[in-house]
């Protein structure tokens, strides 16, 4: 009997959490429609996210491209199709690896920071202080973070795509002995705008997911150090899982 009761309780908690999250997302769109922008604060936040993330995504891009070139060579050389490597590198990066890896890295770097910062603000009554200072905490804390990350992700993924292709180029030309001009021509010829666009759209969706999940976990964290810790963990785990799930459905749409 207790077992059934605990299943019921868990199910109710999950439904409650989903309901709260849906209301949270609706609130975000409500504030977007009639926004009060804290311009200085918003632009500062966008710059912070941008500068702090560039080194991480650059490293992600270059090593992904390099590994992709090496691994593709291992497979394709077995049936003498090495010439397909530039196409494989650029298509895999723009359509798949670029947005997914960027999403996962940004979730770990920025998502965790957002959740920890907002949860700490909640624990130390800073969110209550915002309310007493006649400031809409949702507009001040959530809107700039969601907007900044959603707008920054397409730029991030473009950088990852470019650096990744360059990584593949370096390995293919200097390690595997490809002709440098042929590599670049094959890369450019086989890449269509729709490939790039599908990656950018995925990245935008992932940016929204990471920021909204992180803000939600931060704002509804439990009190104390444990609350901050679990808010951060939940934000990273949940947004990473959702990135992988949404990636499949978006790929189905763009297939």
């Amino acid at each position, binding site marked *: 009997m207790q077992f059934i009761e605990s299943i019921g309780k868990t199910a109710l908690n999950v439904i409650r959490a989903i309901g709260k999250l849906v209301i949270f997302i609706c609130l975000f769109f409500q504030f977007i429609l009639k926004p009060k922008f*804290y*311009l*200085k*604060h918003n632009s500062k936040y966008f710059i912070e996210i941008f500068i702090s993330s560039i080194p991480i995504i650059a490293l992600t891009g270059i090593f992904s491209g390099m590994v992709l070139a090496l691994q593709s060579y291992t497979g394709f050389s077995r049936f003498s199709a090495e010439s397909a490597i530039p196409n494989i590198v650029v298509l895999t990066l723009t359509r798949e690896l670029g947005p997914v890896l960027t999403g996962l890295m940004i979730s770990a770097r920025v998502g965790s920071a957002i959740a920890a910062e907002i949860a*700490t*603000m909640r624990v*130390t*009554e*800073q969110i*209550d*202080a915002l*309310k*007493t*200072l*006649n*400031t809409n905490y949702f507009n*001040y804390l959530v809107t700039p973070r969601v907007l900044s990350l959603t707008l920054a992700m397409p730029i991030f993924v473009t950088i990852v795509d470019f650096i990744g292709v360059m990584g593949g180029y370096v390995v293919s030309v200097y390690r595997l002995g490809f002709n440098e001009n042929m590599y670049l021509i094959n890369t450019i010829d086989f890449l269509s705008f729709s490939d790039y666009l599908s990656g950018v759209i995925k990245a935008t969706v992932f940016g929204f997911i990471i920021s909204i999940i992180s803000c939600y976990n931060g704002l509804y964290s439990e009190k104390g150090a444990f609350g901050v810790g679990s808010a951060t963990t939940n934000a990273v785990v949940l947004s990473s899982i959702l990135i992988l799930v949404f990636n499949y459905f978006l790929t189905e749409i763009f297939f």
Partner: protein
Amino acid sequence: MEIKIEKLSKKFGDNHVLKDINLVIEKNKSTIILGKSGCGKSVLLKLIYQLIKNDEGSILYDKKSFVDIDKFGMLFQYGALFDSLTIAENIAFGEINEGKNNYRNKVINSLKEVGLSADIYNKYPSEISGGMKKRVALARAIYKNPKVIFLDEPTTGLDPINSDMINELIIRIIRKKKMTAVTITHDIQSALKTGDNYFFLNNGVVEDSGKCTSMLKSKNKLLDEFLLGVKKLQKS
């Protein structure tokens, strides 16, 4: 500003936090709200501040049911300063968000009012001591010249010297600016020093009230127990 509370009730789920509260916070007087942890003091403060809504009853501010929140100021238990902003940005927070830039002199005056120098103007909260943080939080609370100031455990976490200093500061400021003050505290010495009237809450009900000068002579058993408990705790 006079605040009149009639038949006020608040529930969170099945938890009846405040039940049928009736009290008057007199204009330009310092009112102390006493009570054990979890008795509903903070909820009462949030209701008066209009941060949450009541289920039943009414709160009248100079006989009006609504007041602009800018007429209130709040000093939080641990200051609640924004870590990512400088001291100046913390104090002039509202004005900065309204896009105003000429706040420097006003901030420096506020710092002087709470006994701090302009040296900390560009520092971050993590770079100053606990006592200074409390004073900065007080400077932020009085920056817009509110009519009512709410003080949530103003001396918590401070040593006796800093506690005394903060109490003196609070008395001086509320008298000089002719503010109404509402203080939540467990610190009986501070209550006796800074308060005019008191209300003692127990399980969401006002158990006792009166002038602070007669608090120690009260015949209310629950208040007596509470005062004794606090005294024992302070001794230990």
